[in-house]
């Protein structure tokens, strides 16, 4: 898909909580064989503080994105949060974030859900809104405090984090633009959470070939065919990263060498931030890419669907990198906690309230 | 204006009285006070209380207590200024008599703080702060005071050990006071090692939670001598308020409301701080005790802990501070405390205070609501 007018990224931002728990600590707690998690290629994951949630993390990533965008925040006319860990089942997260950014009331937006690709869906919607001329700037946030059942293999990777982007018409203040995109969606129940369930269910091995791999491969191939591109035309490839292994495997399937994938592979150090996953990887790449380079971005969401984007980096990106915390700085700012504190922060145990 | 005298007092012991409610406690104190004036008719009742509504589901407290104490269908109302309600009740009662409209007025103070576990009582007490901008964040009243204690110790270079002298003196004085809640001595080590509530405030830095009631009979000069041989005059009275949001104030190490209220009281009584023989000041927490003495003009800024460690303000000194044991050890049934203080100072000047008795001609009582938000200073003369 190509819009009639090009749309680009004006600013980007990330928020990564500073508390971390090692996978070995989780494994020990539940009696997993030692190094069970090493096959996942994830060392440790982030844990949101007790007073953090999707809204507070999304706000902080959005603040960084606005700082890099260098626009008057009040010029933002749309705001989306893609998440599967909304603080309220019914009550939007975007309203609290928008008030806390001072960008209400003349604004449109909503919270979107499609597992880990909801924020990506918001990117697509924003491209449409901007290129049609309906609005000038849109703020897209992917934020999650991912849940996992204690003792389930998912607990090794389900983590917390957020990424945010200010999108606008391609022009003198964009640092990268979308060359094209391609979406691929089917009803594939690989991972779900019923409304009142605390934790998700998943199909274990089923989440692989029929879900993650099938959709990412289809979307990426569809995009490359439409744009007439090959893997060698891309300098980087960022995929949804539920662990450290899948992105390398799907990259190989598509013909991308691991050197193009590693710069955007952040999950080994922070876990799977769900809606933050591929997008935090994209932020990491924007912080090292050079003008003219081409990035393949393919978020995936269970249920299932994937979107593939081709993004071309423009001039001016390097000046914006250090205006706000970088992914590297946020990854390195960490404090380890043990399982007891993790359980307290994640609400697995709570003080009995009389 | 008419001159106003304290002609009778009544106090209950302070403690945890699960078997007595607001009305029982108040009646106990009121009947004792009425006894002292030969059960003469009281024409109005002012009651100081903070938590009857939040913890006792009881409003309309004035009418309830006037009825229970057998005072008849007289004008009766509650006044509230958080933990300074008692002082404000005395302030109000004074003007009822001074206006010439009433000859005999009862001023009472009563508080029940033991109806619920501490964490619920703490929330009610925290309402002394700014609800939308301080309580909103979850800070307790102790937390607010702790912010000041840290600043005080840091600014004036006072050690934990030096600060601990205050509770030591208070407890020593309270041992002899039959009305006091905590009648045991403590050492500096015990104070410094007691449980942290809000760092740096420890358990033994804080006034205890307790129930109590006290009552005064105020009379005009026209009838005072008929009711008692030992009337004590309210010679000076002052009250002031300050920004409730503590961070908005310029100086956090001094209560401007104390300084303003004291100025009015000293001027009216035509005295200076050095003339005061005995003072009951509002030491809800250790740091406040020291700050109050500085604001009242008894000592130099930041020097009070050192002075007290050297023996100043102990019984026999001028002024003797808190011979009752103060809020720390006599106790602090919040809304009643200000009334207790006047009763105690009156008894000191009458010569019949049943604890540490220092006598004298001029006494002062200071009552504070919130963190220096509402302050009354009252001066009594024999």
């Amino acid at each position, binding site marked *: 898909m190509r819009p009639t007018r090009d749309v680009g990224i004006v600013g980007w931002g990330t928020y990564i909580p*500073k508390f971390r728990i090692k996978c070995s600590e989780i494994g020990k707690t539940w009696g997993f064989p030692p190094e069970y998690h090493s096959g996942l290629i994830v060392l440790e994951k982030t844990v949101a*503080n*007790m*007073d*953090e*949630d999707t*809204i*507070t993390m999304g*706000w*902080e990533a959005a603040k960084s994105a606005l700082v890099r965008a260098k626009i008057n925040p009040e010029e933002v006319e749309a705001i989306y949060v893609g998440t599967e860990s909304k*603080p*309220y089942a019914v009550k939007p997260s975007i309203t*609290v974030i928008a*008030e*806390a950014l*001072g960008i209400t009331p003349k604004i449109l937006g909503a919270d979107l859900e499609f597992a880990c690709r909801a924020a990506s869906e918001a990117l697509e919607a924003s491209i449409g809104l901007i290129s049609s001329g309906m609005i000038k700037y849109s703020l897209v946030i992917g934020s999650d405090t991912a849940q996992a059942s204690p003792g389930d293999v998912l607990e090794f990777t389900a983590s917390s984090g957020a990424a945010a982007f200010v999108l606008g018409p391609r022009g003198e203040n964009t640092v990268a633009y979308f060359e094209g995109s391609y979406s691929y969606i089917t009803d594939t129940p690989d991972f779900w959470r019923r409304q009142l369930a605390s934790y998700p269910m998943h199909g274990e091995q089923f989440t692989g070939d029929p879900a993650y791999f099938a959709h990412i491969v289809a979307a990426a191939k569809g995009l490359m065919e439409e744009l007439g591109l090959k893997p060698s035309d891309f300098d980087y490839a960022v995929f949804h990263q539920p662990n450290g292994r899948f992105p390398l495997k799907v990259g190989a399937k598509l013909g991308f060498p691991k050197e193009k994938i590693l710069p955007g592979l952040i999950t080994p150090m922070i876990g799977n931030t769900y809606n933050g996953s591929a997008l935090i990887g994209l932020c990491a790449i924007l912080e090292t890419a050079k003008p003219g380079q081409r990035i393949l971005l393919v978020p995936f969401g269970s249920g299932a669907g994937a979107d593939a984007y081709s993004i071309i980096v423009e001039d001016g990106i390097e000046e914006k990198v250090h205006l706000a915390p970088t992914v590297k700085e946020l990854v390195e700012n960490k404090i380890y906690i043990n399982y007891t504190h993790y359980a*307290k922060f994640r609400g697995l145990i*709570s*003080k009995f*309230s009389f | 204006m008419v001159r106003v005298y304290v002609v009778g007092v009544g106090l209950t012991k302070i403690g945890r009285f699960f078997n007595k409610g607001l009305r029982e406690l108040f009646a106990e104190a009121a009947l004792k006070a009425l006894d002292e004036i030969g059960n003469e008719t009281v024409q109005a009742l002012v009651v100081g209380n903070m938590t009857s509504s939040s913890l006792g589901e009881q409003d309309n407290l004035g009418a309830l207590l006037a009825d229970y104490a057998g005072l008849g269908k007289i004008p009766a109302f509650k006044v509230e200024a958080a933990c300074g309600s008692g002082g404000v009740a005395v302030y109000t009662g004074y003007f009822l008599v001074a206006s010439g409209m009433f000859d005999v007025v009862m001023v009472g103070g009563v508080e029940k703080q033991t109806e619920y576990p*501490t*964490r*619920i009582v*703490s*929330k009610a007490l*925290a309402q002394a702060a*700014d609800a*939308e*901008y*301080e309580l*909103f*964040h*979850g*800070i*307790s009243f*102790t*937390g607010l005071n*702790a*912010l*000041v*204690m*840290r*600043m005080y110790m*840091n600014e004036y270079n006072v050690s934990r050990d030096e600060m601990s002298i205050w509770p030591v003196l208070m407890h020593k004085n309270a041992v002899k006071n039959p009305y006091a809640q905590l009648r045991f001595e403590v050492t500096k080590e015990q104070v410094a090692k007691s449980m*942290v*509530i*809000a*760092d*740096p*405030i420890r358990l033994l830095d804080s006034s205890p939670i307790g129930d109590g009631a006290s009552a005064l009979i105020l009379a005009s000069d026209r009838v005072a001598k008929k009711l008692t041989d030992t009337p004590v005059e309210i010679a000076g009275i002052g009250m002031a308020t300050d*920004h409730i*949001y*503590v*961070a*908005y104030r310029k100086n*956090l190490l001094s209560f401007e409301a104390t300084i303003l209220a004291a100025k009015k009281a000293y001027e009216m009584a035509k005295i200076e701080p050095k003339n005061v023989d005995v003072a009951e000041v509002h030491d809800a927490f250790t740091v406040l005790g020291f700050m109050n003495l500085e604001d009242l003009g008894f000592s130099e800024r930041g020097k009070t802990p050192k002075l007290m460690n050297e023996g100043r303000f102990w019984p026999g000194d001028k002024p003797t501070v808190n011979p009752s044991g103060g809020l720390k050890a006599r106790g602090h049934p919040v809304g009643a405390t200000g009334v207790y203080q006047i009763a105690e100072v009156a008894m000191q000047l009458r010569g019949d205070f049943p604890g540490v008795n220092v006598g004298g001609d001029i006494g002062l009582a200071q009552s504070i609501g919130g963190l220096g938000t509402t302050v009354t200073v009252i001066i009594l003369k024999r």
Partner: protein
Amino acid sequence: MSMKISVPRVWREIKAHYLLEATVCNKCGKIHYPPRPICDNCGNKNLFRRKLSGEGEVLTYTIQYIVLEGYREYAPIVFAIVRLKEGIKILAQLTDVEPENVKMGMRVKAVLRKICEDGKIGLIKYGIKFKPV
């Protein structure tokens, strides 16, 4: 089901709590936080609104172990009076810092965080806390 957090109270204070919106006197320039209807310095009723910077340093702090009903999971809570670079002082919690690492004079900045929740089904109250820079 009892409601511990008042809906209108939380709603009408949003700008003051999310954005640190203060009033400023356009006659004498005094900044007031919390916002107020009349300048307490010069009596001027013509005040305009301004968002404070959120950047400042810790003037004093306390580590509160005995916490109030509704905040019990968060113990111990660090409260501080922060002096913002505009000169005005704000009371708020500090977050993302170990109590033993808090120092007077520490540089901090304002972040949006959860203040408390009314159980599992009541409102979530958001506001500003400060974290070390």
